């Protein structure tokens, strides 16, 4: 009997425990394997190796003017690779930090480079650059998505951002080019970071010659309606502005560099690729060399307003024709001209015969002579001692007295500048005007210019050079004061 009660008691003891065990059944757990990233085998992305440059560097010379007058967001050492490439090609790189001198400095330049400007170009500057490019000068504008100006509040919080494209666009828009205020990125295939974008599709141009893979580092996209897209991203390259490829066609890629229709304006949305170590990635160094070649292959037409930067080389011969004597006044004026040209590293040399190559300044009068004929022939100039006028197609009839004529003829071999005036004294005055280096007082039409040199003849005073466009510039109304050439005496 007690046995039965024992089992009942045992059941009463165990039952609550069982019930609670079942109630709180914790289940069965089996250790499982949890996969985690393979940290040990994660590797840093490596930049592609630079393609060796095999092309010989051609000495091209020239002056490249780099804008530094618009609060440009770069340091000169950041574009050292480009300046080195230009120097290797015999070019001189000048930085222009005074916008008021742009007009005069563009005279000597074969190319103008603008990098990440912050302040706007004036309409006058834009006009100057347009004129420069219109005559074949090369313009290269670089912006950079990482170089905008960020404004902070008093607590240091960034409150505003002005991208450099705002200042750059007015300069390139006349050439059908627009920088977008964005940056390009590629999450799939990139050079170490999503904002470092590869470009493997290229527009056909000397600028893209020999390129197969270029990497840009935080680039704006650049658009052109009329020009040529040079560096074009793939369908995975997106703009931060839209998170998409341009337009509706996903195969149409964003461009990061373009060339204007006339081939004279190169615009790139990045310049970080110019800096070490990025300049050696992929074909970036080849691109830098191509840009250097582009800047120095300017076919800019040199005109009289570019004086004194109209000559090639370092020597200019001075050839007085038979109607001009090497008087003291002439010699004095020539020495002034020599001083003036020295600033451009040009020496003057008086010669008796016309050189077959190089530069020559021909001094003559409106009186025809055999040794002058070949120099004025290309200009269809009609010189006649019996006439009170000189006839030239660009100006019509020009009064001989008080006017000086500048004729520029550039051939492959020789650059010839012909100075003509009515008398020897007038030639002297014309030389003085030329020595001043400022022909803004003259009426210039590309290769032909007319300078007022006072009243002409005996009224002209040697050494004064205050050209004015007075009444004498009206050819028909020019007072006639015909004189025979006078040989001035020293001190006279």
């Amino acid at each position, binding site marked *: 009997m007690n046995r039965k009660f024992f089992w009942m008691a045992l059941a009463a003891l165990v039952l*609550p425990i069982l019930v609670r*065990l079942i109630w709180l059944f914790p289940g069965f757990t089996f250790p499982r394997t949890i996969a985690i990233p393979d940290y040990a085998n994660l590797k840093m992305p490596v930049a592609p190796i630079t393609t060796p440059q095999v092309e010989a560097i051609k000495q091209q010379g020239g002056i490249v003017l780099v804008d530094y007058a618009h609060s440009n967001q770069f340091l000169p050492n950041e574009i050292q690779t480009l300046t080195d490439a230009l120097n290797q090609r015999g070019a001189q790189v000048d930085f222009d930090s005074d916008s008021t001198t742009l007009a005069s400095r563009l005279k000597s330049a074969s190319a103008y480079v603008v990098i990440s400007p912050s302040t706007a170009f004036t309409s006058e500057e834009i006009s100057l650059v347009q004129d420069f490019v219109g005559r074949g000068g090369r313009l290269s504008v670089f912006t950079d998505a990482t170089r905008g100006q960020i404004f902070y509040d008093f607590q240091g*919080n960034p*409150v505003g*951002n002005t991208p450099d494209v705002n200042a750059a666009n007015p300069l390139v828009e006349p050439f059908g080019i627009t920088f977008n205020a964005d940056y390009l990125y590629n999450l799939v295939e990139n050079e170490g970071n999503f904002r470092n974008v590869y470009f493997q599709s290229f527009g056909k141009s000397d600028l893209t010659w020999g390129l197969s893979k270029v990497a840009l580092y935080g680039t704006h996209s650049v658009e052109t309606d009329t020009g040529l897209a040079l560096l074009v991203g793939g369908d995975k390259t997106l703009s931060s502005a839209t998170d998409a490829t341009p337009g509706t066609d996903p195969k149409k890629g964003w461009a990061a560099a373009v060339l204007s229709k006339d081939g004279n304006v190169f615009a790139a949305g990045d310049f970080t690729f110019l800096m070490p170590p990025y300049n050696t990635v992929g074909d970036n160094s080849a691109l830098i060399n191509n840009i250097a070649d582009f800047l120095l292959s300017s076919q800019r037409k040199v005109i009289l307003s570019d004086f004194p930067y109209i000559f090639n080389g370092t020597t200019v011969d001075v050839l007085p024709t038979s109607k001009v004597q090497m008087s003291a006044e002439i010699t004095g004026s020539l020495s002034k001209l020599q001083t003036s040209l020295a600033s451009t590293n040009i020496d003057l040399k008086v010669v008796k015969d016309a050189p077959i190559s190089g530069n020559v300044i021909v001094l003559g009068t409106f009186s025809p002579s055999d040794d002058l004929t070949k120099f004025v022939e290309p200009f269809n100039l009609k010189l006649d001692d019996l006439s009170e006028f000189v006839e030239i197609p660009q100006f019509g009839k020009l009064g001989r007295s008080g006017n000086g004529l500048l004729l520029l003829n550039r051939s492959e071999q020789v650059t010839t500048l012909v100075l003509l005036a009515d008398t020897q004294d007038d030639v002297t005055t014309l030389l003085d005007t030329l020595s001043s280096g400022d022909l803004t007082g003259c009426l210039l039409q590309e290769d032909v210019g007319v300078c007022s040199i006072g009243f002409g003849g005996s009224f002209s005073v040697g050494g004064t050079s205050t050209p004015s466009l007075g009444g004498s510039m009206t050819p028909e109304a020019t007072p006639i004061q015909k004189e025979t050439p006078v040989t001035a005496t020293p001190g006279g």
Partner: protein
Amino acid sequence: MKKLELTGDEVRRILLWVIPALIVGILLSLLIPKPVVGVIRLNDAIYASTAKDLISQITYARDNPDIRAVALILDSPGGTVVDTEAVYMELARLRQTKPVVTWVSGMAASGAFYLASGTDYIVAVPSSEVGNVGVIGYLPPSPIVLEDTISTGPYKLWGSPRDTSLREIEMIKQGFFQAVTLGRGSRLKIGPEVLLRGQIWPAGEALRLGLIDQLGSETEAFDKAAALAHLWHYQAVDLYSPAIYTPYPSALGFFLQTKDGLKLPYPSEPGTYMLYIPTLPIQQK
């Protein structure tokens, strides 16, 4: 059928045997612990101090047999890479024996989402924010030589070349991406092109993209953790108090503070972060 008939004495004897045994049995059954869903909360950035607390709680959960599952409650913008990875790896060890469910109470961005992706199931409040997959970093200055400071190598002072730092960040991003793809598996409905944009999504959108599993409440997250551990009945226990024996406040806050006490969303020290920095009022002019 034989009718069970007990005499008064028999009844008395049964009660005498059974009642004490039943009482003892009930008392003994009460010694059986109720399974615990451990609750670990993170309401701050992930940095040395918070990571230490998290790891202490994770270790406690792993070592305590009563804790059968863990609910990770997140409201964090992320934090430093090393601390995030340290916590993530401890979570992975915990998950080998116990399921972990995340409940996003406000934000699981960047490093916090790194942790969430390393759990078995993610529940989020509908308006919470999730994602921001990626890494941010500050490049070291270009190395220079200082007149009065002598070092034994070009990068002794600067750590590494700037370009190397940039590529390191990309490598860390690969780890982050692997963590998300491993953790979410086939539930993830977006590829790297979308995920690695670094976008932060509201939980509803994150659900559609496969970044989370469910919209729901904290208790639903607890229930899910219990379910994954095959628990019918459980109690949720906050693990901070039992796991952190000597709590101490961080001497230096994670976020940068202005002199007048305003807390900025930037870290107070330079470094590499899996961190979400909220949108600032930057406008292009």
